[in-house]
C-alpha cells in the first residue's frame, strides 16, 4: 500500500467502524464500546505513523490522493497532509480514543447510536481537516453538524433542545453564507470555457477585485467566526457546552472549534489577502475583544462548564490574534495554541464529566475542598488548569507566549511605522493573561480548596481508565510545552506559506 | 401527387388538432366523470393520430397501448367502482372558476405570444423515426435513465401495496 493510501485509511477507519457497529446487536454494549475504541485507536496509530513520516522540509501536500469526483463541476476528491493540518489531524486522532473511553460509563442510553455518531463526527472532522478541495471541505464541514446535533439533542441536559437549535441555527446560517460564497468564488474563477475548480491550490491563484474579496471574506469569515466563535457570535457556545454530554463537549471544544480558526488560516485569509489587509484592524479588534470579553465572562460564571466554555472563547481569541498579526512567530503560536486549547479544554471537560458522574451537579458553589477528598483528581485538575492559564512548561504557555510575542513584535514593528493600533491591541491582549489566571484560579479555588463540600455523599477517586485518559492528555500538554521544536518544525513551511499568501496582494491588475 | 399528399397531411393535422382540443374542452364542461374519461380517451387517441402523422409511429402505438388501454381502463374501472354521486357530481366546479380561468388565459396567452414571436423554423418531418433507432439509442445512451425509472416503478408498486395495506389496517 502506498503512503498516500494510509491517509485514506485514517479518514475512513471511523466509517468502517460504524459499518461494523451496525452488525453488533444493540444490547451488547461492551462489545460496541470495545469496537469503537479499537477503531479510534487504530486511527490514532496510523495517524501517529503518518505524523512521524511527515517530512518538515517538503513544502505542499504529502500523502496526497487526487481523484476526479464530479468532473462536470471540477470537483475532485483531494486529500493530503500539510503543515496547516498535520497537528490538527494528530489532535483529532488523539482525542478520538479519549472521547470514546471517557464516555464508557457516562453514556447508558442508546449506546450503539451514540458510538455511531461519535465515529461519524470523527470522520467528518478528519475529513474537513484533510480535504484539499473546497467542495469536499464544505461537505465535511456540513456533515459535522449532524452528529453533533444528535449527540446534544439525545444525550444532552435539560435544555438540550434549545441548545441544539441555537447551535444548528448559528452554524447553518454560517454554512449557507459559505456555500453561497463558495459557489460565487468558483464561478468567478471559471475559465472562459466554463471549467470550474475547487482545489485549494487553484483558488490560491485567484485574482479578485477588492470589493468582491471583502464580500466573500465576510461570508466565509462569518461562517468561520461562528465556529470559532468570535465575540459577538459566541452565545451558542456556552449553551451547547452546558447541555452537551461530556463527549459532545470534548469534541466541540477539542476539535470542532478549531475548524473555525483552521478555516481562517487555510481558506479565509489566504484566499482573500487584500480584503484581509483591509479588514485586519477589525479582525484584530475582534480577536482582542474575544480574549478580554470571554475572560471577563468566565470570571462571573457559576456553572463549571460555562467557565470552560467562556475560557475557550478567550483562548481562541489568541489564535485569531496570532493569525491576523501575520508575524511568523505569532502564526506558529496560533497553531500551537489551537492544539493546546484542544488538549486542555478537552481534558477539563472530561474532568468535569468525571465529577458530574459522581456528584450530578455543575454548580461551582456546590463543591469545595476536593483536593482532600479526591487527591488524584485534583492533581490532574490543577495541571490542566495551569496549562489552561498558560503556565510555562505547559502547552498553553507555548501557544500564548508565541502568539503574544508575535503580536507584540508585529505591534512594535507597526508602531515604528506610525501605527500604534496593533501594539495597543497586543497590550490589551496581554491583560488576558492576568484575567485568565483570575478566572481559572477562582475556578480551581472554589473547586479544589476551602472546606470540604461534596454533594451527594462519598465519592471515589479516579479509576484506572480515567487516570489513563488524563495521563495521556497531560503528557501531550507537557510534550508541547517542553519540546515544541519538533511539531513547530512540521508546521513551519505552512506558516511561511500562509504569511506569503496573505501578505501578497492579488488584485486583478497586479502582475503575478 | 406528392404535394397533394403533403397538403392532405397538413389538413389532417389541423383536423386532429381541432378534435383533440375539442376533447380537452369537453373535459372541462362535462359533468359525469365517465363522460370526462371518454373525452380524455378521445383526446388521447387524436394525439396518437398526430404522433403517427409526424412520423413516430411507435410512440403513437404506445400512446394507444399504455395510455388508452392501461391507464384509462384503470380509471374507468374505478369510476364504475365508485360512482359516488355527491357534491362533486352535482356541482362540478369549485369556487375558483373565474380566477382560474383568468390565470389560465394569461398563462396560455403569454406562452402563445412568445411562441408566435420566436419560432420560425419549420418542422422537419423528413424521415420516419423507427423503433429500431429508438431502441438502439435507448439501450446505449439512456439505459441509466431507464434503470432509474424502473426503480421508480418498483417504488410505486411498493407504495401502492403499502397504501392499500395501511388503509386495510385502519378498517380492521
Amino acid at each position, binding site marked *: 500500500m502506498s503512503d498516500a493510501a494510509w491517509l485514506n485509511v485514517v479518514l475512513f477507519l471511523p466509517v468502517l467502524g460504524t459499518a461494523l457497529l451496525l452488525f453488533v446487536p444493540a444490547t451488547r454494549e461492551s462489545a460496541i464500546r470495545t469496537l469503537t475504541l479499537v477503531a479510534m485507536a487504530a486511527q490514532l496509530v496510523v495517524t501517529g505513523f503518518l505524523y512521524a513520516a511527515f517530512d518538515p522540509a517538503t513544502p505542499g501536500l504529502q500523502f496526497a490522493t487526487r481523484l476526479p469526483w464530479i468532473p462536470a463541476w471540477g470537483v475532485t476528491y483531494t486529500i493530503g497532509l500539510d503543515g496547516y493540518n498535520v497537528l490538527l489531524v494528530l489532535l483529532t486522532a488523539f482525542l478520538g480514543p479519549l472521547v470514546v473511553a471517557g464516555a464508557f460509563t457516562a453514556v447508558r442510553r442508546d449506546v450503539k447510536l451514540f458510538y455511531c455518531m461519535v465515529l461519524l463526527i470523527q470522520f467528518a472532522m478528519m475529513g474537513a481537516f484533510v480535504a484539499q478541495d473546497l467542495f469536499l471541505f464544505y461537505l465535511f464541514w456540513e456533515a459535522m453538524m449532524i452528529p453533533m446535533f444528535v449527540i446534544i439533542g439525545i444525550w444532552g441536559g435539560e435544555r438540550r433542545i434549545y441548545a441544539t437549535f441555537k447551535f444548528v441555527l448559528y452554524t447553518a446560517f454560517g454554512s449557507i453564507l459559505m456555500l453561497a460564497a463558495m459557489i460565487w468564488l468558483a464561478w468567478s474563477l471559471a475559465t472562459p470555457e466554463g471549467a470550474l475548480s475547487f482545489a485549494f491550490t487553484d483558488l490560491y491563484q485567484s485574482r479578485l477585485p477588492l470589493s468582491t474579496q471583502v464580500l466573500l471574506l465576510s461570508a466565509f469569515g462569518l461562517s468561520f467566526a461562528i465556529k470559532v466563535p468570535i465575540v459577538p457570535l459566541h452565545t451558542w457556545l456556552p449553551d451547547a457546552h452546558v447541555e452537551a454530554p461530556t463527549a459532545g463537549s470534548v469534541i466541540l471544544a477539542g476539535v470542532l472549534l478549531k475548524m473555525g480558526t483552521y478555516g481562517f488560516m487555510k481558506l479565509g485569509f489566504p484566499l482573500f489577502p487584500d480584503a484581509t489587509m483591509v479588514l485586519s484592524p477589525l479582525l484584530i479588534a475582534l480577536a482582542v475583544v474575544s480574549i478580554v470579553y470571554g475572560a471577563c465572562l468566565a470570571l462571573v460564571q457559576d456553572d463549571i462548564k460555562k467557565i470552560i466554555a467562556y475560557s475557550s472563547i478567550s483562548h481562541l481569541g489568541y489564535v485569531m490574534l496570532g493569525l491576523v498579526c501575520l508575524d511568523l512567530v505569532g502564526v506558529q503560536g496560533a497553531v500551537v495554541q489551537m492544539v493546546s486549547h484542544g488538549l486542555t479544554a478537552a481534558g477539563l471537560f472530561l474532568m468535569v464529566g468525571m465529577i458530574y458522574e459522581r456528584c450530578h451537579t455543575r454548580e461551582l458553589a456546590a463543591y469545595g475542598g476536593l483536593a482532600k477528598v479526591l487527591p488524584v483528581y485534583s492533581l490532574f485538575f490543577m495541571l490542566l488548569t495551569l496549562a489552561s492559564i498558560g503556565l510555562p512548561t505547559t502547552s498553553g504557555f507555548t501557544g500564548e507566549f508565541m502568539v503574544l510575542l508575535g503580536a507584540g513584535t508585529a505591534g512594535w514593528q507597526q508602531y515604528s511605522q506610525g501605527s500604534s493600533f496593533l501594539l495597543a491591541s497586543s497590550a490589551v491582549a496581554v491583560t488576558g493573561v492576568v484575567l485568565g489566571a483570575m478566572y481559572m484560579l477562582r475556578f480551581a479555588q472554589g473547586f479544589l480548596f476551602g472546606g470540604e463540600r461534596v454533594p451527594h455523599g462519598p465519592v471515589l477517586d479516579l479509576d484506572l481508565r480515567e487516570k489513563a485518559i488524563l495521563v495521556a492528555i497531560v503528557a501531550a500538554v507537557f510534550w508541547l510545552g517542553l519540546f515544541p521544536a519538533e511539531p513547530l518544525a512540521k508546521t513551519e513551511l505552512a506558516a511561511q506559506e500562509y504569511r506569503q499568501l496573505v501578505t501578497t496582494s492579488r488584485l486583478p491588475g497586479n502582475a503575478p | 401527387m406528392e404535394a397533394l399528399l403533403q397538403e392532405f397531411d397538413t389538413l389532417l393535422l389541423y383536423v386532429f388538432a381541432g378534435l383533440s382540443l375539442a376533447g380537452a374542452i369537453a*373535459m372541462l364542461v362535462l359533468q359525469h366523470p365517465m363522460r370526462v374519461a371518454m373525452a380524455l380517451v378521445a383526446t388521447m387517441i387524436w394525439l396518437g393520430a398526430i404522433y403517427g402523422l*409526424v*412520423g413516430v409511429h411507435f410512440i403513437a402505438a404506445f400512446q394507444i397501448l399504455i395510455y388508452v388501454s392501461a391507464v384509462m381502463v384503470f380509471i374507468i374501472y374505478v369510476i364504475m367502482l365508485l360512482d359516488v354521486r355527491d357534491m362533486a357530481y352535482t356541482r362540478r366546479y369549485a369556487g375558483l372558476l373565474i380566477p382560474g380561468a383568468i390565470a389560465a388565459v394569461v398563462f396560455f396567452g403569454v406562452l402563445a405570444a412568445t411562441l408566435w414571436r420566436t419560432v420560425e423554423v419549420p418542422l422537419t418531418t423528413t424521415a420516419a423515426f423507427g423503433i429500431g433507432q429508438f431502441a438502439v439509442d435507448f439501450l446505449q445512451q439512456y439505459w441509466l435513465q431507464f434503470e432509474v425509472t424502473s426503480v421508480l416503478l418498483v417504488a410505486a408498486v411498493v407504495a401502492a401495496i403499502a397504501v392499500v395495506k395501511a*388503509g386495510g389496517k385502519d378498517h380492521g
Partner: protein
Amino acid sequence: MDKLQLLLLLALALFAIGLLGVVIRRNLLVMLMCMELMLNAANLSLVTLARQTDTSAGAVLVFLVFVVAAAEIAIAIPIVLLLVRRRHTLDADAYADLKG
C-alpha cells in the same frame, strides 16, 4: 402558421386546459384525468421538438413519461379509493382538513 407552431400551440392549449381543469373541477377523479391531460400535452411538445431537432432524446423522454404516468396512476388511484372509503365523497374540498 406552420406545423411546429400549430403542434406547440396545441400542446400549450391542452396543458392550460388541464391545469385549469385541476383548478376548477371538484371531482378528484376528474382532477386526476386533467393531470393526465397535462402529461399528454407535455408529451406532445416533446415529440414535436424531437421531430424538429431530429434527435431521439425527446422520444425517450416521452417513453419515460408514460412510465411515470402509469406509476402515478397506480399510486393515486388507491389513495383516492382509500379516501372515498372514509368520507364517501369525491369532493376535493372535503379533504381540506388533511392539511394538518
